[in-house]
């Protein structure tokens, strides 16, 4: 992790839908190589904020930079340097495993030869060789999830954005998934992940906690626990979230 290199920064980033302010003037930085947890209850504004960072949504006010490019004015340049994985693990269900890899790798500008080589590597690393020709819709959930993640970092982007990547998956699979995240971080890829699983918060370098559109806390899990005088991240979250007016 390189603390001197800031890959994501925002200043008073805001998103309003009519009278409703989903994201309210958030300001924060993320360092290169960091595993940054973006926490919050459902409805807190996490996904909205992430969509702005990825260039999927236009900020109402405020500014942000991802990989050095402005998210409002240079979103297409931002997209060249990031990877993304959504809650739905959006791969094409009617395409085979290798076809999905090839599609997205090609979109990010990789050459056919490189794609072929890396695909082999990936399939063997994940133990997917026998599933190379399986349609994604036939894969079990945990495999889809791993594949989705691998596709999102296949082109070695600077940053990868993960939106609730472990929803609906059993704890053992989740832990395997986080192994993959660690490996990616070790290679220098910054990981920006939203989640509402508090135990996953412990795996991050730093976390921020959003409540009602505002970042109420931002620090390493160790410091946060000390700050709130509790033993686990759930308790940190609970103390903050009690104030929340939105969400479930």
């Amino acid at each position: 992790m390189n603390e001197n290199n800031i890959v994501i920064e925002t200043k008073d980033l805001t998103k309003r839908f009519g009278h409703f302010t989903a994201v309210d003037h958030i300001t924060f930085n993320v360092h290169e190589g960091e595993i940054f947890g973006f926490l919050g209850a459902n409805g807190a504004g996490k996904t909205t904020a992430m969509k702005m960072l990825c260039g999927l949504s236009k900020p109402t006010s405020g500014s942000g930079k991802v990989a050095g490019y402005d998210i409002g004015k240079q979103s297409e340049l931002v997209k060249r340097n990031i990877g993304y994985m959504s809650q739905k693990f959006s791969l094409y269900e009617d395409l085979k495993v290798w076809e999905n890899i090839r599609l997205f790798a090609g979109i990010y500008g990789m050459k056919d030869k490189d794609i072929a080589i890396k695909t082999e590597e990936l399939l063997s690393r994940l133990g997917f060789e026998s599933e190379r020709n399986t349609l994604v819709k036939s894969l079990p959930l945990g495999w889809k999830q791993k594949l989705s993640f691998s596709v999102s970092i296949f082109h070695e982007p600077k940053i990868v954005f993960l939106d609730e990547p472990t929803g609906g998956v059993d704890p053992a699979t989740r832990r395997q998934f986080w192994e993959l995240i660690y490996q990616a971080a070790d290679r220098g890829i910054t990981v920006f992940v939203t989640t509402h699983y508090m135990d996953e918060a412990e795996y991050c370098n730093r976390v921020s906690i959003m409540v009602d559109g505002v970042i109420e806390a931002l620090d390493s899990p160790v410091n946060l626990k000390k700050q709130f005088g509790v033993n686990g991240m759930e308790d940190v979250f609970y103390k903050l979230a009690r104030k929340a007016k939105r969400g479930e």
Partner: protein
Amino acid sequence: MIKYLIEKEFKQILRDSFLPRLIIGYPIIMMLVLPWAANLEIKNINLSVVDNNHSQYSRQLVQKAVSSGYFRLTDISYSYDEAIKSIEKGDADVIMEIPANFEQDLVKQGNAKLLITANTVNGTKGGLSSSYLSNIVMDFTTDIKDKWVQPVKAASITPTIKIVTQNRFNPHLDYKVFMIPALMVILLTVLCGFLPALNIVSEKEKGTIEQINVTPVSKLSFIVAKLIPYWIIGFLVLTICFGLAALVYGITPTGHLITIYFCAILYVLAISGFGLVISNNSETMQQAMFVMFFFMMVLILLSGLFTPINSMPQWAQTITIFNPLKYFIQVMRAVYLKGSGIMELGKQIFALTLFVVFFNSWAIISYRKKS
């Protein structure tokens, strides 16, 4: 980059369980079946006769009507009321009532009356039935006049105009020749209009579109990659139709197929572009389908396929100026029947090109990667 997208589109279409069969099967079925149905000629009119005269003349008249080929004698009723019941039941379309004094009146006074009653719920049919029958009666008059009346001395020659009719391009006035090129247009429109419309919306519904939006894929690439498969499908469908038209109906184009293919390129691009515009602006597949269906219906009705554009009121004719189908149908019919070439179709080609540019620009602009 676009090559990967195009690969994906093709694979998805081919792998779908329903689509490939639809693309091949639908045109075949429609081409084989519809031309037999789409026929506005009026034939086999059900005639009910009430003959109160029972004379040689009346019988000859009825004979003449039946042998004309337009009519089918369904019954001979004893009274007019009975015949009316026939119409009400739907068994008869037109009644000819010959009065009791028919023959006597003709021989003694030189003129007689009779009654033709037509069911005009179908206005065209009713009108045509009664005029066919009236014409037959006129003919009959001439027939018996020649036999019975002394020919006037040859001194005075009544000036007559002899009329010779010739129907160009479709000498036998075969309705199929008129309909089949137009049917091809419909098939092309339905397949190349509906399918792209559903395409983008289905990606929206599944969520894969978000994954694309987050990549550096440009709007242009995305749209073009979606269009190209439909372009190719369009050609495939058209070729199948040409083949069937020739094999099954013996209808081959008088002009060059190249002209049609060229205009078809433009037309399919225009229609697919329109489909994509609808897709971009719909949230669910049902919405897309409905909007498309609505426009398709209006465009097909106001295209000159079923009824001539010249017969429409001014406001409708103005609307047809903005209807791509109209121009392509004109092209199809002109090339198939009249042998028109690209030179003569300048106006249509120009209009189609405008549509291509308009719809596809709109499709690209309305596709938003960012909301």
